């Protein structure tokens, strides 16, 4: 009877398969105007002159904004300081160019083609200065890394290293990554006659957060932010690239206010590379010290990533090293090097993604030094409690993930000798790695309404970024109410609905789920209270608190399930069109128990009703084990991933179908990271050399093997009443290392710089 845990098909699948789901770019608008960005072609310098007269005279052109005529816009408050922006410097405010791709003009015309043509007529002269490119310059510590200090120390790692019997010291590199969701970002801004603003956004950033961002950018006092509505119903993927307020989100509203007409901005694929952040390249130095049995005595993880004077997002690579293994002496440091390439941001599996590549590769190298099985090495350093915070885990099934994964994969067949396994001409390699991710519970509210016909509607301002929120949250509400999931509609993506934090850091299920459940239980109790006071109800006189939902919209007496009432009947007798309740759930960032908090989000008053289940007493992580088989062509250096087994502890699985989608998709991200994905920057010009999908390779259908995913499906008894942890990022973590380790096993070659290609293997 319960729906949670069953593979309910996606409720929006039909709309999407028939092409009738309306994504932001598909929404028809009266009187719409179209905008395009003109972007700087140099990475650093000044605009010596900009002449827009030909563009202004071109057919259909309504407005050209440059730094010479654009309205003054404020510097935005950084996300890390409770704001909504990663790039805090607004566009078109001065003649400086800080990175290639910075917006230098914003053109609005009657049609998109006219705007594009006009943008080509703008002539810009630059005074060029040599840009800072690459992680070569002076490194400096960031203010914070995911809300934590940039340096972490436990014990004395340097001394322990000096005393260690066996050491490994290596440097690993990962390149710039771009999120590349298939849907390009789109913003449509329109003002009504009363000064209200409506923005349709392809926004992962959470509509409420964006509302505050728009208020800040447009000089609307926060108490009047209610006049701003942000809507985001269907999103064609985000992965971090559609979070936060970027200049591209703000400019359409600015132009629409000037024109008195709605303005739509749709980015081109190339512009996506410079308009919504990216994952920084990283250089990571790893030093491990162990005794002869493989017990870790010391780990030093020093990570360097890109800094910017427009905002700061250090890729939090070392944070996974701080918690993953039982090691008494650990140092993790984060440094930045300023570059003229724009501000980085969160990208799926931020920190843990590239960080685990370094850590888990280094562990494999240590296993080689010790002639120890890589899995055995991990078991010898298994952390029974959280070594970083010195407290218990709320749940940790990692040991079972290892054993189940090894079993399914056939790990025991691995011949430890590199280059020893073959299949015809292919060299075969096995590799493994540990996965862990610090998913979060963010403050979230939901309103559940039971209607007179017994159906229910749930409203919450989160966004379904493609993960299946519309489906899974209907299941959660259905179970709490005792109705079928088909009787529940989940509505999201609108500031008119109760507050939700952006669905980032694998927080969706574990933040929204408990809020939806709490609200559904509350409204059910309200109906029960109506019934027990109603003489005509079979529940009359019963204790409302003990009334149970027995399915089919029926509420029964605890002592006698034969005596029941229904939502429909109770509401009808009470003459009510509907009954509703609103509840919240979540913990404030920073009070949360896992390693990476994010600076205080300004929703203070809301949070007083939010629960704090175990702040400070337990640590919650998602765990997993990744096993990979690769085949390497010895002559061509081509690497094919031929098998992947991933076993994950994500707490309770709310919907095995959508969870599996997330896992297989995440592993595929890991394959891309290991073998394909890289944005290259011209070393002198500071420009991306291939901002498109033929230069930046995404895994295609032909690149992905059969993937075996298994969930332990054990509810975490402490994390929340649903027992659910997170699944969005975990399956990415460790895949690149597992592949690199398998490539080493196949060929004897250790590649420490991603992506791994023929050049690395044949060179």
């Amino acid at each position, binding site marked *: 009877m319960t729906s949670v845990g069953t593979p309910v098909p996606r409720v929006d*699948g039909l709309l999407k398969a*028939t092409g009738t789901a309306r994504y932001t770019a*598909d929404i028809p608008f009266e009187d719409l105007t179209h905008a395009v960005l003109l972007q700087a072609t140099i990475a650093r310098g000044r605009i010596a002159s900009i002449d827009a007269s030909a563009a202004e005279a071109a057919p259909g052109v309504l407005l050209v904004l440059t730094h010479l005529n654009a309205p003054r816009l404020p510097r935005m408050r950084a996300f890390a300081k409770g704001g909504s922006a990663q790039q805090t410097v607004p566009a078109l405010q001065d003649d400086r160019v800080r990175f290639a791709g910075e917006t230098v003009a914003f053109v609005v015309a009657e049609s998109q083609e006219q705007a594009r043509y006009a943008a080509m007529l703008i002539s810009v002269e630059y005074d060029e200065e040599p840009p800072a490119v690459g992680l070569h310059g002076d490194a400096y510590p960031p203010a914070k890394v995911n809300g934590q200090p940039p340096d972490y120390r436990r014990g004395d790692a340097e001394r322990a290293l000096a005393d260690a019997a066996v050491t490994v010291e290596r440097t690993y590199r990962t390149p710039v990554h771009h999120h590349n969701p298939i849907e390009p970002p789109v913003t449509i801004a329109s003002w009504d006659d009363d000064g209200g603003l409506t923005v349709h956004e392809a926004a992962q950033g959470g509509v409420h957060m964006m509302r505050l961002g728009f208020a800040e950018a447009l000089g609307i006092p926060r108490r009047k932010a209610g006049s701003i509505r942000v809507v985001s119903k269907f999103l064609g993927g985000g992965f971090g690239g559609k979070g936060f307020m970027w200049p591209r989100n703000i400019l359409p509203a600015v132009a629409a206010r000037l024109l008195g007409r709605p303005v739509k901005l749709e980015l081109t694929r190339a512009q996506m590379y410079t308009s919504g952040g990216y994952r920084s390249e990283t250089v990571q130095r790893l030093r491990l010290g162990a005794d002869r049995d493989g017990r870790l005595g010391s780990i030093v993880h020093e990570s360097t990533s890109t800094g910017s004077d427009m905002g700061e997002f250090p890729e939090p690579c070392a944070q996974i090293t701080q918690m993953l293994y039982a090691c008494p002496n650990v140092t993790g440091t984060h440094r930045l090097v300023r570059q003229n390439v724009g501000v980085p941001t969160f990208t799926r599996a931020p920190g843990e993604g590239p960080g685990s590549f370094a850590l888990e590769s280094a562990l494999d190298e240590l296993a080689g030094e010790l002639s120890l099985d890589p899995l055995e090495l991990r078991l010898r350093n298994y952390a029974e409690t959280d070594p970083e915070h010195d407290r218990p885990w709320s749940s940790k099934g990692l040991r079972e993930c290892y054993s189940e994964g090894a079993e399914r994969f056939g790990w025991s067949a691995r011949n430890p000798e590199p280059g020893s396994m073959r299949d015809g001409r292919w060299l075969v390699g096995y590799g493994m790695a540990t996965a862990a991710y610090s998913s979060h519970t963010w403050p979230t509210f939901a309103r559940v309404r039971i209607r007179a016909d017994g159906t229910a509607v749930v409203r919450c301002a989160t966004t379904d970024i493609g993960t299946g929120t519309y489906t899974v949250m209907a299941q959660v509400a259905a179970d709490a109410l005792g109705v079928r999931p088909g009787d529940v509609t989940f509505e999201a993506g609108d500031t008119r609905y109760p507050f939700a934090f952006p669905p980032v850091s694998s927080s969706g299920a574990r933040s929204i789920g408990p809020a939806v459940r709490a609200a559904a239980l509350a409204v059910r109790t309200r109906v029960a209270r109506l019934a027990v006071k109603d003489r005509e109800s079979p529940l009359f006189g019963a204790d409302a608190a003990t009334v149970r939902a027995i399915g089919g919209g029926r509420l029964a007496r605890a002592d006698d399930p034969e005596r029941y009432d229904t939502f429909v009947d109770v509401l009808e007798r009470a003459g009510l069109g509907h009954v509703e309740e609103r509840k919240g759930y979540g913990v404030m960032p920073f009070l949360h128990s896992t390693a990476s908090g994010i600076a205080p989000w300004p929703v203070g008053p809301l949070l007083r009703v939010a629960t704090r289940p175990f702040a400070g007493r337990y640590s919650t992580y998602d765990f997993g084990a990744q096993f990979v088989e690769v085949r390497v062509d010895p002559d061509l250096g081509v690497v094919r991933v031929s098998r992947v087994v991933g076993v994950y502890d994500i707490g309770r699985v709310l919907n095995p179908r959508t969870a599996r989608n997330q896992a297989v998709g995440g592993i595929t991200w890991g394959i891309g990271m290991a073998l394909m994905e890289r944005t290259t920057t011209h070393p002198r010009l500071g420009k991306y050399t291939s901002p498109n999908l033929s230069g930046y390779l995404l895994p295609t259908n032909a690149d992905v093997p059969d993937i075996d995913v298994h969930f332990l499906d054990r509810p975490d008894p402490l994390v929340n009443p649903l027992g659910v942890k997170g699944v969005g990022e975990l399956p990415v973590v460790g895949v690149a290392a597992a592949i690199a380790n398998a490539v080493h096993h196949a060929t004897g070659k250790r590649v420490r710089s991603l992506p791994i290609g023929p050049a690395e293997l044949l060179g």
Partner: protein
Amino acid sequence: MRVTVTVNGEQRRADDVWEGESLLFLLRERLGLPGSKNACEQGECGSCTVYLDDVPVCSCLVAAGQVQDREVRTVEGLAEGDRLDPVQEAFVEAGAVQCGFCTPGLVVAAHDLLDRVPRPSDPEIREALAGNLCRCTGYEKILDAVRLAAARR
């Protein structure tokens, strides 16, 4: 210029079409058919795939003027009335849809594959759909969907 074209079995006309416009633009912006998606405009992702005279094309790479007096079939034209095409049905049932932005293009490409090869092998499916990028699914369920649709057709 004026473009006259049959779209999903219906004669359609668009006036004042600029020579530089793509078929994708024509469909989405002028004919009210936003099912085909604009994701790269460079022929790299397949999200804009439609049939042009029974041949699947990236509609972002076809000039609007090229479709004069020809036949176009989009994702909106695959279902017959209320009856979904087996490929669409299979995509929903197999769970091959996540964010769904790649789905319209994939549905058309898979439809074409099954027209040409009613019982494709797995490598054939992977190869045929390798021009349609998906950033969410990891392709597993898309493969399942094509197998399912093949079994049902």
